[in-house]
């Protein structure tokens, strides 16, 4: 072993990783070509997904994905911002701070399938009772249940990123504001939040990327219906959940290829959301002059 060999080893490992990544994208693109060729652009906007008649329009799943992720965001943002503000502004030290941090970490590390399990036993009966109350079809499963649990799953990430963003507000700014006699609330809403808003927004985008790709909990709660959902209580499917349900039985070549096309779509939208989030986060960080 010498310097040259060591560097060669490092380079080899790096090359392999890049190849694996490129291979992923290539595999998905090549294997989804037959289906895309058959359907053309209708693959994206076609609303009929029927393996039996060999029609593969992914619109129901695209809508299901966007719907559940957006609703999850809408629910999670106020909760996460509040939790982040409490952790970043009000409880900055002491045992309570460690406790809250640990709690958030624990919530973040609970596996998706356990959330699905909890959702089946707790959330679905609740949503079913709600549906009965308001006269909607009382399935229990559906868009609302999946979105609720999805929201709980992304809260830890969003709140800790909010907390980090707030804690990075320069102390001088903050102290100066207090010295001028501003109340805590005025500092938070007038100084800290505006300063940190780019990073907070980045945190929201990254959590969105996570929600888009979430599979197990959604599959277990969304009801597996291949139609465009028309209400909160509708059953539906997301890109991830339909892959989980149908991949292992797609026997015809076109069906398999269509599955790969869905996987490619999922890859692309999570990549885009993640890329936006990371770029914003870098811009936010550089604003601090670090």
């Amino acid at each position, binding site marked *: 072993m010498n310097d040259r060999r060591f560097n060669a080893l490092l380079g080899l490992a790096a090359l392999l990783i890049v190849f694996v990544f490129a291979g992923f994208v290539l595999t998905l693109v090549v294997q989804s070509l037959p289906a895309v060729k058959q359907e053309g652009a209708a693959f994206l906007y076609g609303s009929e997904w029927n393996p039996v008649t060999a029609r593969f329009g992914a619109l129901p799943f695209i809508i299901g994905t966007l719907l559940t992720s957006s609703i999850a965001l809408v629910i999670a943002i106020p909760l996460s911002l509040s939790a982040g503000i409490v952790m970043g502004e009000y409880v900055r030290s002491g045992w309570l701070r460690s406790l809250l941090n640990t709690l958030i970490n624990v919530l973040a590390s609970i596996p998706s399938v356990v959330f699905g399990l909890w959702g089946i036993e707790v959330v679905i009966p609740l949503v079913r009772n709600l549906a009965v109350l308001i006269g909607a079809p009382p399935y229990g499963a559906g868009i609302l249940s999946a979105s609720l649990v999805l929201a709980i799953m992304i809260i830890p990430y969003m709140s800790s990123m909010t907390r980090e963003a707030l804690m990075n507000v320069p102390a001088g700014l903050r102290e100066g504001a207090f010295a001028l006699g501003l109340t805590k609330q005025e500092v938070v809403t007038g100084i800290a939040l505006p300063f940190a808003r780019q990073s907070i927004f980045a945190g929201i985008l990254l959590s969105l990327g996570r929600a888009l790709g979430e599979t197990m909990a959604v599959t277990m709660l969304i009801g597996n219906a291949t139609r465009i959902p028309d209400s909160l209580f509708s059953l539906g499917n997301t890109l991830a959940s339909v892959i989980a*349900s149908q991949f292992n039985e797609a026997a015809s070549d076109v069906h398999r290829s269509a599955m790969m096309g869905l996987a490619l779509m999922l890859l692309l939208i999570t990549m885009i959301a993640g890329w936006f989030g990371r770029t914003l986060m870098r811009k936010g960080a550089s604003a601090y002059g670090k």
Partner: protein
Amino acid sequence: MQDGHCALAMEQQARILGAPCNFNYENGGNHMKRNVLFRRGLLMALCLIGAASALNAQTLLGSGATFPAPAYTKMFDEYYKATGIKVNYQAIGSSGGLKNIQDRVVDFGGSDSFVKDTDFAKYPASIMHIPTVIGAVVVTYNLPGNPALRLTGEVIADIYLGKITKWNDKRIAELNPAVKLPNMAIMPVYRSDGSGTTFNFTAYLSAVSTEWKSKVGNANSVSWPAGQGAAQNAGVAGVVKQTPGSIGYVELAYAHQSNMPAAAIKNSSGVWVDASLASISASAAGAFPPDSRILLVNTNAKEGYPISALTWIIVYREQKYASRTLEQAEHLAKLLWWMIHDGQNFVEALDYAKLPAPAIKAAEAIIKSITYDGQPVLK
């Protein structure tokens, strides 16, 4: 100044935000000792893995139909006790089993829908169907008090078409005058995965309802006009069990094992029949084709249960493919032979009917025609 806690270390993004992390720095330590330890540990681990792989008992892998899964898992449990051979059966649905057999990633596939002649070309080599057990697709439901209900095929079809939406609809009430039906919405539950159970259920509905036949048809996966999907027989049973007002179609064993009711159905002779060993066997009492591909629904038998179904194990005729050994082929053939003979003793306790004599004869002939490199495997 933060104390350096990196929130959600799982996400590097927090770090990019600039939160410094104070890690512990150990001293360099005795690296010689560490290197030797590391190498020895790696060697030991590799030896363990190798030994473990070598020591593993012979196993067979199958996947597919959930319809016979209670019977199969029971059979394979007994087979393991009798012979020490582990048969790993993953119940993922008939379409899943067919796909896995097509990809040749399993030793055998299970399916309650037989492969049509026109679909043989999808498989890389010629496949054979070995019949194993006969079961019943029952209509189960979740109502307060779980009353015993009577339903006709047309009513069931109209429920799944979305035309009958309430439990106290008069068409259900007139069939069940003694039952106080609640004013609840009917929630049909169907298979979201490709299923042989669906194949048989929709075959029955197509036979008794012309509207069903033209609108929906008969296949492993259909476009269901109404209701909620669940995966596998277990999933449908699970959803029905937990959803008041729901109705679903499952294999009899799943309903019995979970104390769920099963509706009596009027068969083509006009007799109200409950699914039972007797009524299932009655529907299978007729002639049996030599390649064993037969549909038992809507039987003519007077006491036959109208949604009975045969299920098959699918294997390749020529077992020498993709580095399979003769030993593997022999194990497979022996398992199949056992399943249609001694294995049959375990199925009736689960309310599956044994294969009738003509079916066993046909199955024996089929198993004997499994070859390895051209030679029959079972002598």
